[in-house]
């Protein structure tokens, strides 16, 4: 609402400019002129023409004190229906329209929310679950793994990521059975809550290096493995012998290529019957620590996330 103190064109103030669009056109012309100085002389010319034309029209309006301030006289409506014809229809119910607007607002709002959030959500969640390719890891020549001895091997699962991908495995060469080499390769993450498990033997400080793999041969075989966090205890096959671990230690698949030992993917183990090369390993998909693999509690974890 304009205030009383604002001026309107009227008989007392005929020179106050009325509402008009000529100044806008003039502004466009000036802008085109300035832009053209930077970009192209043709645009300068066009801008000058526009500015001149609209400027002339604006100036003419101001000088005349007229222009769009002159509104056509309208005869007032009269109660008896004579006079100016009705220029609008009778009001009718707008119920249908407001409901449409409501649904439209909510719907489009939901659409916007979905369009923006879903890709972002997917970005947040999916990379953790899509197949994390980890290739085979070269742990060195077979001669580094004397038969019957444990070797603590520390390697990087993803050298591109660097030290953060370092893992440790306890590797024991079980010899050759039916012309097939047998290795027991146990992960050092406790099956209770993932703490680093310690071998129960004296660990010598000497170690060998094969590329980025550190090998520590254990002169005396450990009598088992023990976890420093909550007291979990395992035997040399990785079976749980005491404490809260819910299953045996995880193991790694392996392959032998060119007389080198290669580690493949890890898998989880519920328990191991037997020892060494003749052991029967009850294998399961690789699971997080703390998850039961067999027994009634395994129904608590029906679906494994893709690893």
């Amino acid at each position, binding site marked *: 609402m304009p205030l009383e103190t604002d001026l309107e064109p009227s008989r007392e103030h005929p020179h106050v400019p009325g509402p008009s669009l000529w100044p806008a056109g003039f502004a466009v012309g000036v802008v085109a002129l300035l832009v053209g100085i930077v970009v192209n002389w043709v645009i300068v010319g066009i801008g000058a023409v526009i500015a001149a034309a609209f400027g002339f029209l604006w100036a003419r309006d101001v000088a005349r004190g007229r222009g769009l301030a002159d509104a056509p006289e309208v005869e007032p409506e009269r109660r008896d229906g004579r006079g100016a014809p009705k220029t609008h229809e009778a009001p009718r119910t707008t119920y249908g329209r407001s409901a449409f607007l409501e649904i439209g607002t909510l719907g489009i709002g939901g659409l916007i929310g979905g369009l923006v959030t879903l890709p972002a959500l997917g970005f947040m969640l999916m990379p953790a679950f899509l197949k994390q390719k980890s290739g085979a890891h070269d742990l060195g020549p077979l001669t580094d793994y004397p038969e019957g001895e444990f070797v*603590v091997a*520390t*390697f990087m699962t993803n050298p591109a990521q660097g*030290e*953060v*991908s*370092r*893992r*440790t495995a306890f590797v024991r060469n079980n010899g050759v059975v039916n012309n097939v080499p047998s290795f027991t390769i146990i992960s*050092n993450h406790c099956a*209770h*809550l993932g*703490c*680093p*498990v*310690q*071998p*129960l*033997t*004296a*660990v010598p400080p000497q170690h060998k290096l094969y590329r980025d793999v*550190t090998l520590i041969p254990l002169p*005396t*075989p*450990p*009598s*088992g493995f*023990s*976890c*420093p*966090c*909550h*007291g979990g*205890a395992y*035997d040399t096959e990785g079976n*749980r012998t*005491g*404490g*809260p*671990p*819910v*299953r045996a230690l995880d193991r790694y698949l392996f392959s032998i290529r060119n007389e080198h030992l290669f580690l493949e993917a890890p898998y989880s183990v519920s328990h191991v019957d037997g020892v060494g090369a003749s052991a029967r390993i009850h294998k399961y998909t690789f699971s997080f620590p*703390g998850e*039961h693999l067999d*027994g009634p*509690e395994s129904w*608590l974890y029906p679906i494994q996330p893709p690893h």
Partner: protein
Amino acid sequence: MAEDRLAQRERVFQQYKRDVKERGKPFYPYAMFHDTLMSFVVAVVIIGLAVIWKWTTPGHHTGFNLFGTTDHPDQAGWLGKLYDEPADPGTISFVPRPDWYFYFLFYLLRIFKWPDSVILGTVGIPTIALVLLIALPFIDLRSERRPLHRPVAMVAGILAILSMGILTYKGATAQESLPTENLTRVPGWAQKEGFTANKQAVAGAKLFAVVGCLNCHTYLGTGNHNLGAPDLSAEGAKRKGVAFQIAHLKCPSCVTKGSPMPSFANEGAENLNALAAFVEASQGPK
């Protein structure tokens, strides 16, 4: 009845608002002064702890200026180390612990040792505790606020505080019999038992510390005592002889019927001799 109760507590609240209007004091400056003073104390305590943490860590502090390189950040001052060694995901000698305010949860995990009960300690009890806390205003529907007239609430509160305090303390003092920790104790054992001069016994002591004996046995206050295995601090005083000890280590169930102790035959002759010498030399603290 319910209608009356709801209406009555609404009335009490309205009376509260009227009482505060009549006899209350403006927040500023009366209550705000106390708040500000307490906040000042908090700020001073935090700054003081930070200063103590840094300045009691052994190292080279150059005078009073605010520079000051700590030469030995790996040595703990009054408030612990400034930082540990860098993260090593492949370690086999580190003992993980959470921050102190999680010790009560940490110790809860150690209490639930049976694999079938683990989920109680990890998610069961903490979730139930959180649900009870959130549901408290709906469990306690009485409008009584005076502590002496709310026995159930007071007892529950005291029990909660005491149990969290005890769990936190036990978590702080929890110890495993780990090779890395036990090895540091061997010189003390040799001194207490008096076999420092006996090289074979000392070697045996070092083996004893790392091959897992202390997961079942106790020795001079260290080790696990709730698995039924005997304390070995004075085993040598029974004078059973080295030969007996070696035979026992090779096949414990042959010597003692029904013994759950595993065989240590794969240690090899030299190590078995050392272990036997150690056991026989352990004749009780001098």
